[in-house]
């Protein structure tokens, strides 16, 4: 009997496992994005920024994923190294004609398009949109400075549904999209007046895609933005409403992105508003060459009885060259007119960006 079985056993032992003939989706997805930027201003002051992050997605099966994105950054303005966990969340996704997603933890901001391009390889220019990182003059007397719309990864939960021609989302987050929030930092979140500015904010948003390549979306955010005591004039918490409208248009070798943000903030002087917009475009000239640019403007008022308007305007023009599918070189010129100044500041910058999808 063994004589008969032996050849079959040999075949079974030496044959490649049948499962090996089909690829299985990897359990882990890992990619890395990095950039080194050199910026010089009109006075010859040079600054260097370094950014490195990794996005890890672990698949647990049954459409459940864990996502984490550690990040290290050398801040160009002060040279400090900043280490953060920007995303640390669990997610359930159900694909289909009407797809559904629920996620919780430190999530990518549910407000704004610019928050979705915070990784260097996703940003066609060297600088990020100013609305995310440029503090506007304080809207409350001796109160903290906030941003038109911060680049944040709040602690919260979000539910999203999407189909071919529409998407909708609702989220609850633990901080105002006007305030920077960090997982690691001291103090963290940044403290003003001894009270951590954690506020419940609710976001409702959605968009329509009438045809492929064109999407218009909007979101409304409501929640606290200022805690009692963060300003000497404040005896109670203040809330804010944030409305943003976003637009994406892409065709052939061209892509355009725009966002309009309007903030209405309760202050001790009544409701004050601040607003802004940006328009960003990218154009591939050849397989390796591309140009990109951005125009942006922020308008705000000083916390005086008669509000004095102040503006911020910035433009950037970038020329890029793809060395490989993973490495791109960029040079850019930036012009900036900051709040309360008539003069324009000029900056030149070069950047090398590397992105690799490991698995």
């Amino acid at each position, binding site marked *: 009997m063994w004589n008969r079985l032996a050849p079959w056993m040999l075949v079974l032992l030496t*044959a*490649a*496992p049948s*499962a*090996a*003939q*089909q*690829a*299985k*989706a*990897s359990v882990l*997805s890992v*990619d890395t994005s990095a950039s080194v930027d050199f910026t010089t201003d009109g006075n010859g002051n040079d600054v260097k920024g370094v950014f490195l992050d990794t*996005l890890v*997605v672990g*698949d647990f099966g049954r459409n459940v994923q864990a*996502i984490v*994105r550690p990040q290290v950054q050398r801040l160009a303005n002060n040279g400090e190294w900043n280490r953060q966990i920007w*995303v640390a969340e669990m997610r359930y*996704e159900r*694909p*289909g004609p009407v*797809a*559904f*997603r629920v996620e919780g933890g430190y999530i*990518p901001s549910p407000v704004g398009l610019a928050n*979705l*391009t915070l*990784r260097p390889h*996703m940003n066609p220019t060297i600088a990020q949109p100013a609305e995310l990182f440029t503090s506007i003059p304080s809207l409350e007397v001796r109160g903290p400075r906030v941003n038109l719309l911060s680049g944040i990864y709040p602690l919260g939960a979000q539910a*999203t549904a*999407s189909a*071919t021609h529409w*998407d909708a*989302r609702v989220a609850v987050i633990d901080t105002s999209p006007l305030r920077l929030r960090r997982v690691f930092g001291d103090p963290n979140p940044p403290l003003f007046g001894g009270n951590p500015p954690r506020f419940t904010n609710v976001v409702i948003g959605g*968009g329509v895609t009438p*045809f*492929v*390549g064109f*999407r218009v*979306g909007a979101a409304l955010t409501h929640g606290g933005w200022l805690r009692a005591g963060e300003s000497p004039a404040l005896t109670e918490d203040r809330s804010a409403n944030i409305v943003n409208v976003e637009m994406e248009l*892409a*065709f*052939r*070798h061209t892509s355009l992105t725009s966002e309009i943000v309007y903030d209405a903030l309760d202050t001790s002087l009544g409701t004050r508003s601040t607003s802004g917009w940006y328009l960003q475009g990218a154009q*591939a000239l*050849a*397989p*390796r060459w591309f140009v990109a640019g951005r125009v942006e403007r922020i308008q705000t008022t000083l916390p005086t009885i008669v509000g004095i308007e102040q503006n911020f305007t910035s433009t950037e023009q970038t020329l890029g060259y*793809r060395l*490989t*599918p993973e490495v791109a070189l960029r040079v850019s010129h930036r012009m900036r007119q900051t709040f309360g100044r008539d003069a324009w500041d000029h900056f030149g910058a070069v950047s090398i960006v590397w*992105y690799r*999808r490991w*698995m």
Partner: protein
Amino acid sequence: MIFSARSSVLLAVAVAGLAVMIDTEPAAQEPGSVRGRVSIGIPVTAKRATSTYSRSIPAVALAPESELRHVVVYVKDAPKTAVQPMRAEIRQRNENFVPRVVAVTVGSVVEFPNDDPIYHNVFSLSRAKTFDLGRFPKGKSRGERFDKPGVVKVFCQIHSHMSATVMVFDHPWFAIPDEQGNFDLSGVPPGMHQVTAWHERLGETTLPLRVEPGRPATIDFVLPVPAQP
């Protein structure tokens, strides 16, 4: 007159016949063929779609193709030969390139139809071919001609998990195995050859093989390591 006219004619015919016998090359050898089977000995993983930075949710994943359809078997040291251009296609479907590997002759056109209700942006920066097809909607297609032999890695600028390979040959002795891994290269010049099985992730495995005139030579591959004799 030592020779008669008749003798002269016979001599001329004899000399001419001798010259023909001397100048004529030996008859071309009948070509052989290379047959065999490829199998993959280790599990292969594919990149998964991720949507961390997206307002939309990825499509349902396709049933995976046999990885054996992503193998190309070819005669590595084949001489450059005049070849007929072909037509091939790589579809963009459910955020994947389908198939992920095609093999064509020099001068061939590969079409890239978009079957998805979203944009893709097919491009390559490979030495053998650099191109950028831009974005085009569902139901449309763009083609690209491949004029140089080599390996062309194709990507989507929008979806980082999407990649494909176009292998371009300046000879006809290449094949993509069937679902069972079987392949057949016909018309291979007789002699000693290096035969390669290439897989986009497992790399290439090359084995020597003697091809006899008019006879099939057999070679099997177990990727990523050479088959044991």
